[in-house]
């Protein structure tokens, strides 16, 4: 080390120049340092969940939804609608935005008297201005589930413009542009900006302003601490220069590698300042000590480097290890933070033993103040003396307290909550938090749950499974407004055929599909080959625990209840399996009804009775022919001038109807041919002689009219029977009734979809093709869950890794296994104490607080090393244990307290920041410093004294000697007492 010191002094000029050059270069790099607020970047990009998430984003026009909400008394007024329209139009023109949905730009399929109307909810070219029309639109919009709670709040006071950003769009830039654009539109509505892009903007701004706001405070604190400690310019400038230089290097290097500053690393500059300053302080301190001892300047510097160099190196190394332990984390941002903080710490060490002494050598030696010595017996010293007494007396008690804290800590590990949602990073009163809270309470949330569907989306079997899943999703608390292609098909079927369900046949689906084709909403729901689709719902909570519960439930439902290998069979071919198949159908329909009932707040009083009724209706053999309703429909048909069979004479109409009804009653398997021959018997030749195909077409229409009536009759009678089973009148809720009819409509199906694996016997040798379906959940909640899992494993592994490594290092240094073990215990205590505090104060583990453990190891170990070294040294001087302890506490102990105090102050500045996790991190780590210092000054010596650990010195014999001494003392006192007597 002495040689190194000579080298440093020899090359002091090049060292200073090189250091300055590197610093200037790195400072330039700093300008390129970017801030990343993308939560996806937390995870490695090859993480399967990230891959799937990105895949979905690529395929369906982007994953990022930006939501702009406008709040006013009633959004259905011309000004607000016009403003929404302006915003919508302008956003649509931005190339980075793939789709925009709002009141003035959303597909609307309206049922009308004799048909349907496909169009937009509000015609953007012709926004109504009269009250009556606006009122109509309002009532209509709020009556439809598609809109209510999605683009407008239930009470009509908030309207939302939802923009989907392209997958490759720079969300920060686009988000800012959007915000500016929206704010420039005129209107009195209160604006809210929610969704990931706006959260990112806010987070970036906050990181930026936090770094800018906190750094000067930390620097100032550091200057004050240094000024008080050293009372000299040199004492302030040198350590300050050291930390500033090493911090610039660390951050500059980060920028050079293209690593961005994140929610985890934004505290890095402060951390480096707080930790790095210690090395400079030690150097300057030792130098002053040597000068005071009478060394000349150069000699003092040499001594300083050679004597303090190794401890500083060790301290730096262990601290770096604490940070490098984050390499085992799966979370990219934490890994990066670990690496670069470790490097930064090593930089601080290097600068402290090269640049600092080099610069010092150019400064005149300080004048030695005479009164320096007299300040030795201060109140601190008295306190330390007393402390040493307490430790010796109460060592067992101290150790017991220490171990009880450890026990509580271990218990609390399992009870600490976790929080990974970005929204939780912001203070409750922040603009973004308010926007998100509003979205959650009024519009079901801003975070999408996504389920990727792989399967033929024009296949009724596939669509029916999607409907089943969506109904389940709706029944879950905190899951809102699921949306998929299946809903649009149901909606269209409702408009065409009054039944809100998936049509039984592929042709039926394809026919309905026709209306949707080319609509802007489709590319957000399906790919162009119709073999992949997306189910999207909104997560109505930002609570990580609840979100994890929900994603888990969804995954379980998919694996347990969704058919992935579907076989289509005709009910007439079911034969021996019919009973089992019907049982399955009953359960299926009953489940759907149950989900719907749950969602709409209805209770099923008797589920068994429901299933019994369903079973009865499914197994009913002879179909009832509802003569009166068929008669009405057929009369209508024959009266319609556009119909194939226009009959004016009501007598003839009656004859036709009677004959048809008779025919249908007699022939269960009616045919169009049969009807034609039936008609020919009654309808005079003159009706069809010049149009030979007329009766064929008439038969076609008649079959569909009668079949339709039979089906409706079945459904209506079933609904009538189950109505009393619900806790409330189903007529009260038209949406529930609509869904209920859709659920029940399935009893008419003759094509049944069953699980191929469960009915292997039907599809022997796999002669029938099956339909495959694969559902995978993705979306932000899954990403959060992934991060959450990784936070836990990061915590566990990085901590174990750090403690393990430090243990090995200490064991090697003390050449003692026990020595390593004892030295690590105060740190373990500190870490566990931290967990106990987190548990008691309900502080969640998040991207920042997860790091406390390892940071505590890295910094706390220094105290242990310093203490052990000094104690070892003092014991070596053949001092008594009391003396050794007292001296150690008065010298190193004091240093530890000063250091802990200044580091603590540094971290407490984080409380002034705006990011909640960093605030928590700040005060927790500050507390940790205090605990760590306390543990190494009390718990550690108590342990050493109790175990008589040999690595520290000949404690055992010393104790023996001490015991003899005490005995002798007592004897003497007793004797003295006796003498006096």
């Amino acid at each position, binding site marked *: 080390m002495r040689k190194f010191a000579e080298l440093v002094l020899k090359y002091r000029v090049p060292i200073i120049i090189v250091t300055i050059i590197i610093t200037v270069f790195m400072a330039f790099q700093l300008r390129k340092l970017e801030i990343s607020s993308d939560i996806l970047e937390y995870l490695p990009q090859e993480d399967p969940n990230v891959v799937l998430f990105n895949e979905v984003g690529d395929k369906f026009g982007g994953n990022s939804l930006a939501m702009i909400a406008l709040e006013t008394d009633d959004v259905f007024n011309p000004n607000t609608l016009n403003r929404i329209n302006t915003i919508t*139009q302008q956003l649509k*023109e931005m190339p980075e935005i793939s789709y925009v949905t709002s009141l003035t730009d959303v597909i609307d399929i309206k049922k*009308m008297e*004799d*048909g*349907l*109307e*496909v*169009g*937009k909810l509000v*015609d953007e*070219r012709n926004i109504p201005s009269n009250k009556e029309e606006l009122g109509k639109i309002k009532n209509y919009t709020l009556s439809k589930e598609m809109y209510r709670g999605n683009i407008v709040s239930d009470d009509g006071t908030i309207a939302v413009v939802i923009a989907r950003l392209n997958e490759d769009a720079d969300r920060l830039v686009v988000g800012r542009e959007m915000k500016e654009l929206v704010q420039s539109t005129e209107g009195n509505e209160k604006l809210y900006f929610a969704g990931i892009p706006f959260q990112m903007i806010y987070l970036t701004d906050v990181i930026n302003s936090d770094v800018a706001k906190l750094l000067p405070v930390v620097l100032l604190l550091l200057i004050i601490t240094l000024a008080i400690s050293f009372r000299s310019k040199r004492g302030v400038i040198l350590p300050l220069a050291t930390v500033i230089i090493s911090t610039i290097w660390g951050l500059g290097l980060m920028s050079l590698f293209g690593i961005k500053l994140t929610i985890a690393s934004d505290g890095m500059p402060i951390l480096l300042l707080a930790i790095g300053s210690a090395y400079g302080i030690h150097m300057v301190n030792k130098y002053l000590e040597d000068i005071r001892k009478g060394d000349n300047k150069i000699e003092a510097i040499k001594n300083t480097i050679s004597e303090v160099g190794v401890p500083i190196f060790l301290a730096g190394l262990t601290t770096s290890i604490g940070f490098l332990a984050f390499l085992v984390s799966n979370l990219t941002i934490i890994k990066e933070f670990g690496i670069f903080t470790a490097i930064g710490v090593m930089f601080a060490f290097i600068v402290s033993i090269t640049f600092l002494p080099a610069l010092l050598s150019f400064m005149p030696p300080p004048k030695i103040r005479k009164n320096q010595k007299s300040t030795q017996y201060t109140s601190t010293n008295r306190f330390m003396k007393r402390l040493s007494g307490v430790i010796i007396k109460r060592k067992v008690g101290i150790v017991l307290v220490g171990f009880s804290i450890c026990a509580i800590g271990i218990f609390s590990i399992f009870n600490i909550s976790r929080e990974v949602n970005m929204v939780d990073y912001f203070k409750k009163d922040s603009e973004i938090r308010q926007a998100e809270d509003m979205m959650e309470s009024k519009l079901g949330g801003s975070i999408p749950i996504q389920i990727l569907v792989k399967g033929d989306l*024009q296949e009724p079997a596939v669509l029916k499974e999607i409907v089943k899943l969506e109904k389940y999703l709706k029944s879950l608390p905190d899951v809102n407004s699921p949306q998929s292609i299946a809903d649009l098909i149901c909606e269209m079927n409702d408009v*065409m*055929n009054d039944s809100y369900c998936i*049509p039984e*046949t*592929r*042709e*039926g*689906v*394809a*026919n*309905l*599909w*026709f209306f949707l*084709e*080319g*609509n802007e909403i489709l590319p957000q729901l399906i790919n*162009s*080959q119709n073999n992949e689709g997306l189910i999207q719902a909104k997560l109505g909570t930002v609570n990580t625990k609840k979100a994890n519960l929900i994603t888990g439930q969804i995954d379980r439902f998919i694996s347990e209840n969704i058919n992935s290998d579907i076989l289509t069979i005709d009910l007439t071919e079911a034969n021996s399996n019919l009973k089992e198949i019907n049982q399955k159908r009953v359960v299926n329909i009953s489940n759907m009804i149950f989900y719907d009932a749950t969602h709409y707040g209805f209770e099923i009083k008797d589920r068994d009775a429901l299933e019994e009724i369903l079973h009865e209706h499914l197994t009913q053999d002879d179909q009832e022919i509802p003569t009166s309703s068929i008669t009405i429909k057929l009369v209508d048909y024959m009266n319609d001038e*556009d*119909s*194939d069979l226009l009959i004016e004479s009501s007598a003839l109409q009656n004859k036709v109807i009677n004959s048809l009804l008779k025919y249908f009653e007699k022939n269960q398997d009616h045919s169009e041919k049969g009807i034609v021959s039936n008609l020919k018997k009654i309808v005079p030749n003159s009706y069809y002689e010049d149009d030979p*195909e007329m009766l064929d*077409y008439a038969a*076609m*229409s008649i079959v*569909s009219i009668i079949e339709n009536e039979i089906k409706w009759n079945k459904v209506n009678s079933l609904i009538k029977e189950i109505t009393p089973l619900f806790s409330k009148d189903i007529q009260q809720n038209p949406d529930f009734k609509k869904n209920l009819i859709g659920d029940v409509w399935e009893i008419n199906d003759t094509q049944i979809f069953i699980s191929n694996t469960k009915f292997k016997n039907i599809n022997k040798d796999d002669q029938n093709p099956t339909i495959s379906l694969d559902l995978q959940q993705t979306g932000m909640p899954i990403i959060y869950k992934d991060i959450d899992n990784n936070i836990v494993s990061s915590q566990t592994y990085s901590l174990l890794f750090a403690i393990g490594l430090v243990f090995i290092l200490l064991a090697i240094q003390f050449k003692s296994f026990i020595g390593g073990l004892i030295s690590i215990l105060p740190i373990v205590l500190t870490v566990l104490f931290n967990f106990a505090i987190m548990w008691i104060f309900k502080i969640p583990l998040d991207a920042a607080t997860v790091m406390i453990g390892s940071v505590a190891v890295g910094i706390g170990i220094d105290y242990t090393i310093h203490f052990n070294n000094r104690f070892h040294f003092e014991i070596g001087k053949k001092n008594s244990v009391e003396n050794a302890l007292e001296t150690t506490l008065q010298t190193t102990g004091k240093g530890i307290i000063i250091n802990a105090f200044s580091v603590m102050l540094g971290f407490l500045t984080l409380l002034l920041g705006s990011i909640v996790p960093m605030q928590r991190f700040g005060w927790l780590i500050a507390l940790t410093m205090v605990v760590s210092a306390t543990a190494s000054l009390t718990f550690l010596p108590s342990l050493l004294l109790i175990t008589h650990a040999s690595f520290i010195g000949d404690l055992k014999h010393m104790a023996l000697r001490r015991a003899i001494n005490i005995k002798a003392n007592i004897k003497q006192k007793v004797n003295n007492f006796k003498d006096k007597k």
Partner: protein
Amino acid sequence: MKKKAITITMLLILACGSVYAQTHLAEDILKNADAVVNAPQDQEISLKMTLTDKGGNEKIREMKMYQKGDEMRLVRFLSPADQKGVSFLSLPDDIQYIYLPAFNKVRRIASHIKNDNFAGTDFSYDDMSASKYAEEHDATLLEKTDILYILELIPKPGVEKSYSKLKMWVRQDNFYPVKVEFYDKNSTLWKLFESRNIKKHGEYWIASEAEMTDIKKQHSTKMITEKIELDKGLSDKIFTKRNLKRAK
């Protein structure tokens, strides 16, 4: 007719080179272009439509179209199989019906939104209707090349269109519009329409291939006329609800 138009044009150019005349000339060209496209009394066309998305995926649809005059049209889809028989009937005054064979139902469709695309194509309902450019636009002649006129069309005041302007290339010899560019409200190119294979069928000029490309969406629709019969004297009965259902 061709000769007459050219004579008028020549005369106008000779008479004066004023802006007025230029505008007038442009409007005449446009009127002629409308007239050429709308010339047949009725048509019965078998069409093959190819939709291409930005990934290069193609969807093919075949249909049969009956048209009489400007405003009566019946379209029947022949493929894909599961949409076979789906039929549209358009009658004057924006009355439209659809027939869905899977449900054997005829429904009236009202669509207020003329700029919505027709059944997944790049043609809007508006684009599909009869060529009435002259009626709805003010035209100016931008350029005259060896064989083409290049016009700029701006919707007349009060006429709402989804585009801000059109640029139209019209053949000088027969006034057939061969290319139309649609510009959005930001004046950037949005859609491109091209007519190809323009040949004379009897006394009419017919483009047997037409393609509309949505440049923003990178999606295109190509329609190829596989068979065309003109002036067959189609009966009005074809354009009825009753016939709409007869899709077998």
